[in-house]
């Protein structure tokens, strides 16, 4: 019964995470199905998108003895914090001794996935489904950049286009004026490409902003600001990247926000409705 592998994957992909971990011991072929990255995508479509409540929490904690970040998950109906061993494995470059551990950022979750990356350019970006303990490592962008010495900030966003292709966008905002650099990765081609864009030289970006709920996963958002003259404060806006047509869009924010002197005095969130 149900010996059609594709149909079986589909059926199992409607199961909650807790059942999946248990049913990995039904038979080895089920363990293989549930452990595959293809299944992570199916589960995201069939379970995560139809699940109306938050079912678990994710804790990211820095371990001072191993110099690594650990990810821990807990499901609301389970009594214990369940550590999933795979995730504290060596999947990110270990943070070096004496290095401040905060050079690593976590973006998400969007559709059950989180993205973990360091802020320096030539380091791995990891996309991770913490519930199923599956991680996808993106290839490092091979695009050469002759301004390596410049100081910059790396921001990463991810989402899905209409064909369910996973896309990851990385922005390098230069500390000194200069056109930001944008590169985009597509999972279907497994390649990076540089993107021409309209972001101005003096635009700065802070804080990636998560969509209110799943389903808005075709956009990545950041709080952006443009430093005006010292006395005038900054000019803030919402910067969004559309995974569909690969262009940036800007949404203005209420005018009084511009009085805020520093970007850390402004926070932006999405609402339902």
């Amino acid at each position, binding site marked *: *019964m149900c010996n059609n592998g*594709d149909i079986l994957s*589909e*059926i199992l992909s*409607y*199961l909650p995470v807790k059942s999946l971990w248990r049913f990995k*011991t*039904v*038979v080895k072929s089920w363990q293989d199905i549930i452990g595959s990255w293809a299944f992570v995508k199916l589960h995201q479509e069939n379970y995560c998108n139809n699940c109306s409540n938050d079912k678990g929490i994710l804790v990211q904690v820095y371990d001072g003895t191993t110099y690594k970040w650990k990810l821990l998950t807990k499901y609301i109906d389970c009594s214990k914090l369940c550590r999933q*061993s795979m995730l504290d494995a060596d999947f990110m470059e270990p943070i070096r001794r004496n290095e401040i551990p905060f050079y690593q950022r976590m973006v998400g979750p969007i559709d059950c996935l989180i993205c973990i990356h360091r802020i320096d350019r030539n380091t791995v970006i990891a996309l991770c489904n913490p519930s199923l303990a599956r991680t996808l490592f993106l290839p490092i962008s091979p695009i050469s950049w002759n301004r390596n010495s410049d100081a910059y900030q790396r921001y990463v966003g991810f989402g899905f286009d209409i064909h369910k292709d996973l896309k990851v966008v990385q922005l390098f905002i230069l500390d000194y004026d200069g056109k930001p650099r944008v590169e985009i990765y597509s999972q279907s081609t497994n390649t990076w490409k540089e993107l021409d864009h309209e972001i101005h030289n003096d635009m700065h970006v802070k804080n990636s902003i998560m969509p209110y709920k799943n389903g808005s996963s075709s956009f990545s958002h950041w709080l952006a600001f443009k430093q005006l003259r010292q006395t005038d404060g900054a000019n803030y806006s919402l910067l969004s990247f559309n995974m569909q047509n690969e262009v940036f869009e800007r949404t203005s924010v209420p005018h009084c926000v511009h009085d805020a002197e520093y970007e850390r005095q402004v926070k932006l969130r999405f609402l339902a409705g």
Partner: protein
Amino acid sequence: MAPKNKNPNGENVVPEVQQKKTQALILKSSDGEEFSISKSAAGLSVAIKNMMEDDCAGGVIPLPLVDGGTLARVITYLNKHAEDGASDEDKRKFDEEFLSGMEVDVLCDVALAGNYLDIRGLFHDVCQRIVNGMKNKSVEWVRKTFRIESDFTAEEEEQIKKEYAWAWEGVDSDAD
């Protein structure tokens, strides 16, 4: 409901649109049973719709991967969903009752047929139904119900169970 059209002799006239909808075609199961179904109901299956557009087999569509019993169930579903005037609420109630009496074997057959005939709504509902029945069950229940023989050694199984003990919390008893 729209008032019925009558011709000058007082007979009911079926509007042209509806005539087109009620045209029938024949679906033939793997074991040779034939079922008559309206084109509008059959068209809810993307696969049958494509076959109708290709106009194959002059009104008889063979479905070699679906047996008669399963096809009868699928047709019941399609007829309800093609019914004029059935509200979404009616359809939801129907789906609930339609699936609630089925054993897992039958549900799996309907899932296969729903996938093969590309009826997304049916396929989704059946998967959801199968999963609702099994999500709180034990591993042993799943093996028995799906007639699967474990290929784990007792030690391997114990090891995983120890590591992910939280996933074994609050499992239903196998008694019911």
